[in-house]
C-alpha cells in the first residue's frame, strides 16, 4: 500500500501559521513583551536607585565633614581674633616707645611668634565634588563662607607683613640709637606710615571676623538641618580623628569645656580593644588615648587654675597618668608632671622626683629650657639648686634659662 495515499493532505502553510498563532498565543507573547519591558525598566530603576543612594550617602558624609571643618575653623577664628588684638597691642606699645623716643629693647620677634596660629582648614572644602553636593543653595552658602575666609586670611597676612616691617623699622631705630646714630628720618617716615596702615586695617579685620562668625553660626545650623532631613545625626558620622581635630581646635581657642566634651566623645569611640595588644588598632588607639588625655589634662588644669572646682586634683592626675602611659609625646608628658606638682599639688618632693626622672631620660633638656622659669617658687630651694648644679652638663647654664620671663601661658 502506498503510504502517501493514507496521509491527510497538508493544510496550506498560512492556514497552519494562523492556527499556530491563535489568540491565546498572541496574548501570551504580548504578556512576555510587557514583562520584558517592565523587567528591564525595573532593573534600570533599581540600578539608578542604588546609584542615587550611593551619591546620597557620599553627600551626607560630605555635609557632616564640612560641618566639622567649619566648626574647627570657628575655633581657629577665635584664636586668630586674639592674634589681631595682639597685633594692635604690639603696634601701640612700639608707638609709645617711638613717641617718647625711649628706644628700649622690645621683644617683638617673640611676641609675634606667640601670636602665630594655625591656618584655616580647607581640606574638606577642596574635596567637595560640586555635582554631588545635592543641595545647591547650601553649596552656594558654603562657597560664600570660604570666600570670606580666604579674603580674611589675605587681609590678615598683609597686616602681619606690615607689622613685621613695623617692628623691623623700630629695631633699626633701636640699633642706631645704641650706636649713637641719630639720623632716623627714614625710619620715622616708615614707622609713621606703617602705624597708620596697621591701625586702619585692624578694624577691617575685626569687622570681617564678626561677619564670618555670624555666617558660620548660621551655616552650621543649616548643615545640621540638612543632616536631619536625611535622618542622620552628626555624631553618628564623626570618627575618632574628627573628635581629635575638634578637641585640638577647641583647646587652641581656649574653649576648655568644648575640649573636654569632644575628648570624652572621642574616647568613647575607642573600642575596648585598646587594652588588647593583639588588636590591629592597638598602637593607633594607644596614641589617640594619649592625645585625648593630654587635651583633658590641659583643659582641666586650666579650669582648675581659673578657680573652677568641677574637676578634682585626682581626676587631673588620672588624665596625666593615662597620657604618660600611652607613650605618646613622652617628653611632654614628663614635663606636665612638673606643672601638675607645681601648680596643682604644690608638692616640692614629687616635683623634684619628676625633674630627676626627666633629666635622666632627656639630658639635653630641650623642652625644659623654655619652661623652667615658670616654677619660680621652687627654684630657690637648696635641694633643687644642688641637684641642677650637679646633674646638668657643662654649658647647660640653667640660671640663664630662668632669666626668661615668667609666663604661665607656657604650660
Amino acid at each position, binding site marked *: 500500500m502506498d503510504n502517501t495515499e493514507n496521509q491527510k493532505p497538508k493544510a496550506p502553510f498560512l492556514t497552519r501559521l494562523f492556527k499556530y498563532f491563535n489568540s491565546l498565543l498572541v496574548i501570551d507573547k504580548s504578556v512576555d513583551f*510587557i514583562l520584558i*519591558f517592565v523587567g528591564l525598566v525595573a532593573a534600570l530603576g533599581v540600578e539608578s536607585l542604588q546609584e542615587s543612594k550611593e551619591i546620597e550617602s557620599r553627600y551626607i558624609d560630605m555635609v557632616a565633614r564640612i560641618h566639622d571643618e567649619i566648626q574647627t575653623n570657628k575655633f581657629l577664628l577665635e584664636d586668630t581674633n586674639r592674634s589681631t588684638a595682639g597685633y594692635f597691642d604690639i603696634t601701640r606699645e612700639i608707638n609709645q616707645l617711638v613717641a617718647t623716643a625711649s628706644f628700649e629693647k622690645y621683644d617683638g620677634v617673640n611676641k609675634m611668634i606667640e601670636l602665630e596660629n594655625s591656618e584655616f582648614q580647607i581640606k574638606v572644602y577642596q574635596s567637595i565634588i560640586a555635582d554631588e553636593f545635592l543641595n545647591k543653595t547650601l553649596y552656594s552658602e558654603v562657597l*560664600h563662607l570660604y570666600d570670606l575666609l580666604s579674603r580674611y586670611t589675605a587681609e590678615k597676612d598683609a597686616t602681619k607683613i606690615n607689622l613685621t616691617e613695623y617692628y623691623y623699622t623700630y629695631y633699626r631705630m633701636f640699633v642706631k640709637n645704641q650706636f649713637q646714630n641719630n639720623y632716623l628720618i627714614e625710619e620715622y617716615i616708615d614707622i609713621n606710615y606703617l602705624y597708620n596702615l596697621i591701625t586702619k586695617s585692624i578694624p577691617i579685620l575685626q569687622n570681617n571676623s564678626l561677619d564670618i562668625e555670624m555666617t558660620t553660626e548660621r551655616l552650621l545650623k543649616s548643615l545640621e538641618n540638612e543632616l536631619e532631613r536625611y535622618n542622620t545625626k552628626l555624631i553618628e558620622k564623626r570618627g575618632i580623628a574628627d573628635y581629635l581635630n575638634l578637641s585640638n581646635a577647641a583647646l587652641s581657642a581656649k574653649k576648655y569645656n568644648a575640649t573636654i566634651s569632644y575628648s570624652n566623645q572621642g574616647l568613647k569611640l575607642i573600642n575596648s580593644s585598646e587594652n588588647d595588644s593583639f588588636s590591629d588598632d592597638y598602637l593607633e588607639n594607644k596614641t589617640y588615648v594619649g592625645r585625648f588625655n593630654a587635651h583633658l589634662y590641659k583643659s582641666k588644669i586650666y579650669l582648675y587654675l581659673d578657680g573652677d572646682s568641677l574637676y578634682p586634683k585626682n581626676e587631673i592626675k588620672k588624665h596625666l597618668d593615662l597620657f604618660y602611659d600611652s607613650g605618646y609625646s613622652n617628653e611632654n608628658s614628663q614635663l606636665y608632671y612638673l606643672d601638675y606638682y607645681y601648680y596643682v599639688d604644690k608638692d616640692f618632693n614629687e616635683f623634684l622626683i619628676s625633674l630627676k626622672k626627666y633629666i635622666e631620660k632627656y639630658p639635653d633638656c630641650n623642652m625644659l629650657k623654655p619652661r623652667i622659669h615658670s616654677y619660680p617658687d621652687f627654684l630657690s630651694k637648696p635641694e633643687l639648686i644642688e641637684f641642677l648644679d650637679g646633674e646638668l652638663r657643662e654649658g647647660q647654664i640653667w640660671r640663664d634659662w630662668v632669666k626668661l620671663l615668667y609666663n604661665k601661658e607656657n604650660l
Partner: protein
Amino acid sequence: MSLISRTKNFFSSLLIIDKSVDLLLIFIGLFAALQFDSYLKLKQSEELYKNSLTKIHTEISVNKILLKDYANSIERSTAIIWELDSLGKLGFKDTYSGILNINDIKVTQLNDRSFKALSENNFLNKNLYSDIKKLYNNYDKLEQGWDTLSNNLQKNYKAYFDIYATQQLVSYAPDDKAQEVVNNFVVDIANFYGFGSSVLKQDYWPNLHIQSANTVGDDLLDKIEAELGLYKVSLNEYRSYDDYYWLSYYSLQNEDYKTSLEYAFQGISILDKVNKDDYEFKSFSGRLNRNVVFGINNLIENKDTKYKRNEILPFLKEWYDSGIYRESCIIEYLDFYYNDNDFDNFLKYTRLIFELDSQRIYERYVAGWQDFMTKDAIISILEKTDRSIEAWNSYIYPKSI
C-alpha cells in the same frame, strides 16, 4: 526515529517563526525600555541644565552689579591720583588721608561660585558654555588689572607720604646726611610721578575689561533667557529665593537700594511657599527681611519719600522671628525707637539684647544713642553686666577715652 529526524520535526517552520517573533519582541522590549530610561535621564539632566542656566544668569547679573563697583573704584583711584598731584604742585606740604581713602575704594571680588559648580558635560549647549567661559576669563583679567592698579595707587600715596614727611623732618638731618636726604627725595619724587602716571595709564585695560564684560554679559543674559525659552520656561519660574537673596544682597552692597528692595520682595513672595518650620526658611526669611529693613532705612536717609520709617516694623518683626542675626535685628529696633523718641520700647529692646550671649555689635552702636543710654533705667541694666559703667562709658562717649 533518529535524533536528526526528531530534531528536524521539532524545529518545524512554525517553531522557527515562533522563536523569531520572540527574538523580535525581546529586541523591541529592550529597546523600548532603554529608550524610556534614557528619556527619563534626559528629562533629569534637562532639569539640572535649566537650574544651572538660572544660577549662572543670577551670577552674571550679580557680577554686573559688582562691575559698577569696579568702574566707580577705578574712577575714584584716578581722582585720588589727581588730588595728590594737585597737592604735589602745591609743594607736598599738606597731609592727605591716603590710607583711609584707599581702604574706602576696595572692591568686592566678582562671584564665580556658580561657574565653578557648572559641569561641562551636563551643560547641553556647548556654544553657550564656551561663551560663558570667555566672560569669566574676562572677569579674571579685570581682577588682575585692578590688583596692579590698586598696588600702584598705594605706592603713589606712599611716595607722597615720604616726600611730605621728609620735608617735615629735613631740618633734623645732620649736614653730613644732606646728600642722602636729597637722593632719597629724588627717588620719592620719581616714584610719586612714576606710579601716579602708571595708574592713569593702567586704568585703560580694566576699563576696557569692564566695558567688554558688560557687553558680553548682557548678550549672555539674553542668550540664557532664550535658551530657557527653548524649554518653555521663564527665568522667574526657575529663580529661587536664594537667587533673589544674593541679587538683593549685592545690590544693597552696591548702594542700589531700590533694586535691592525689588529683589528682596520677590524673594519673600517665593519664600511663602516654603515650610515655615524649616531652618532654611528662617535663614532666608531673616536675611531677606533684613535687606528690606536696610534698603528702606537707606532710602529714607537719601531723602526718598516713597517709604516712611515705620514701614520697616513688619519686616523687622519677620527678621526677629527668624532668629537670624538677632543682635543686629535688636540694634535696628533700638535705632528705630531712639529716632522715634520712644524710650519705653528702647528699654524693652535693651533688656532683650542683654538676654543674648554677645553684645559685641551693640557696643559699637551705643555712642549713637547717648541721650537714652544715660537714663537711670538703662544704667541699671548696664550695672548688672560683667563690664563696669566706666567701661561702658568708653563706648558711649568714645572720644572721652
